[in-house]
């Protein structure tokens, strides 16, 4: 790779051994990706490394080394959701609490070190940093070093920023150097679509299911999706942003999609239309049968496939305030229809800390959920499943991501509403 004189100096150790080692790692990353140079990061990072768990994030020793060397990111960054340490919101057994306490014993120190390295504030923990109330909203054309597959696909697709799917730890190293390799989704060429996805369903499909179908088919390619423009707002109103966030998350989970174009809706598709498609692109038609076959193929991984649901986790990825209002109204109406006061299946809805504050301030949805016995958390349910903590529990979810990584069973939103108020799946 061709490096600038300043990059060469850092690499040679002029700023000390730790910056040299960090730069050397980023340079080798660039060489592996076939980049011929590095480019400057132009906006704040968002990273997946929210957990003080070796193997998920960098080790404490690594962070201590960076802090001691005086490293700090060029821009403040946000992180994925905190682990579910707000135990009261998760109906956990004592043995589960004990395991979580032990797993996350270093969490406070870990977060302090990340604040010293550039974490924006002590509440900057969500997988949806680009919500208005959270405020890490990249500009179109920004070059970023993001991780969190759900956030990467949204930043690229809906905001028109440019980031590769960086992995945990390398994300931090790139943000500390303020550099990323000029490769992949940073370049115009890699942002062209190699798949035409024609959605021909009888109604607007659930984004979590459509995304899973697309991700499975295109893997890490770039899809250009038609057939949604009549139902979504090109001005990207909040329901459209909610839809695209869930669509992208499911695409990224089922495959490795880092960018999707939605005809007439996402910015690059509005600007360039089907000129984004490469000439020899492939085509995948999604109809009702494709989606029904997909959800029917999901295995039931509960130990007892006939068990009654014991827990329901919603908000993977984190919900917006509007989505919380939908769940509050839907669950409330279903309870009233059955003459019941509270949900039968313990239910937790996950949102950003800032959304939690907003929902509580606004009042009505929060009150309705509290009355129904539904809990709100700013945590992430995934971390309940590490180490087999919840393998024996019959959990339901509407999340493709949670379903993919755990034994949670997937149901569409409206079925979830019926199940949590009736207890019957």
């Amino acid at each position: 790779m061709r490096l600038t004189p300043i990059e060469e100096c850092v690499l040679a150790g002029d700023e000390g051994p730790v910056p040299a080692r960090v730069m050397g790692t980023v340079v080798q990353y660039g060489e592996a990706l076939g980049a011929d140079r590095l480019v400057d990061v132009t906006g704040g990072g968002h990273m997946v490394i929210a957990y003080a768990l070796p193997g998920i994030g960098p080790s404490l020793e690594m962070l201590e080394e960076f802090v001691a060397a005086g490293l700090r990111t060029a821009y403040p960054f946000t992180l994925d959701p905190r682990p579910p340490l707000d135990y009261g919101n998760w109906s956990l057994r004592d043995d589960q609490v004990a395991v979580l306490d032990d797993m996350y014993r270093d969490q406070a120190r870990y977060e302090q070190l990340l604040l010293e390295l550039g974490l924006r504030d002590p509440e900057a923990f969500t997988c949806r940093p680009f919500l208005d109330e959270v405020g890490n909203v990249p500009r179109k054309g920004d070059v970023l070093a993001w991780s969190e597959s759900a956030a990467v696909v949204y930043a690229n697709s809906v905001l028109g920023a440019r980031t590769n799917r960086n992995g945990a730890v390398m994300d931090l190293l790139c943000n500390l150097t303020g550099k990323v390799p000029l490769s992949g989704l940073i370049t115009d060429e890699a942002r062209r679509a190699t798949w035409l996805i024609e959605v021909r369903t009888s109604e607007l499909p659930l984004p979590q299911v459509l995304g899973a179908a697309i991700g499975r088919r295109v893997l890490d390619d770039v899809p250009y999706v038609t057939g949604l423009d009549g139902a979504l707002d090109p001005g990207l109103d909040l329901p459209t942003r909610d839809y695209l966030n869930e669509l992208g998350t499911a695409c990224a989970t089922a495959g490795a999609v880092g960018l999707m174009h939605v005809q007439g809706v996402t910015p690059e598709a509005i600007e360039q239309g089907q000129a984004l498609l490469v000439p020899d692109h492939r085509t995948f038609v999604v109809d009702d049968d494709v989606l029904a076959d997909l959800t029917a193929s999901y295995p039931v991984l509960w130990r007892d496939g006939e068990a009654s649901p014991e827990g329901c986790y919603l908000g993977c990825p984190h919900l917006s305030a509007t989505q919380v209002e939908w769940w509050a109204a839907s669950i409330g109406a279903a309870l009233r229809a059955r003459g019941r006061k509270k949900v039968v299946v313990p239910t937790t809805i996950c949102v950003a800390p800032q959304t939690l504050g907003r929902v509580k301030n606004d009042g009505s949805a929060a009150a309705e959920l509290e009355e129904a016995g539904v809990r709100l958390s700013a945590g992430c349910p995934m971390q309940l499943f590490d180490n087999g903590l919840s393998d024996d529990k019959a959990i339901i979810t509407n999340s493709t991501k949670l379903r993919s990584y755990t034994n949670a069973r997937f149901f569409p939103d409206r079925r979830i509403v019926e199940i949590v108020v009736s207890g019957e799946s």
Partner: protein
Amino acid sequence: MCRAFRGRPVLPGAVSGPAAVSHGGFNTYASFFKSIHVPSPHAICADSGNEDLHGLDLAGAVLCVPATTGSTSGGGVWQRLVTLGNAPRAVLFAQSIDSLAAGGLIVAALWTGGTIVVVDRLGDEFLTSVRSGDEITIGRDGEVAVRGPSA
């Protein structure tokens, strides 16, 4: 039968071991998230969506994949597997290495001290001809020899 393929050595090394082949994208986090908390000589693939590898022990194997997929948490996993001693011996990519795998495997090599050998650009034919259980020998120059009934 023996067949040879040549790729690009991303993290060079001379190692050999049994092939573990994923014909679809290899979801790193889903495969290993249960193998990174407690020291163990094993790394049982926990990805129920991977028909080829679910339930197989990937510790010491030569993982043969088109590319990696899934959560970007998968980046940190490689470093942890090396530390715990239950990492695959090598990862062979049919395509150019993806950013998620490149970042994770390079960090594991440069910050942990134990290298998982990585060769990419071996071509689609490599992945269609190699079978799980074939004996694979990798040279520092990126040459990959496959021995087995199917090779």
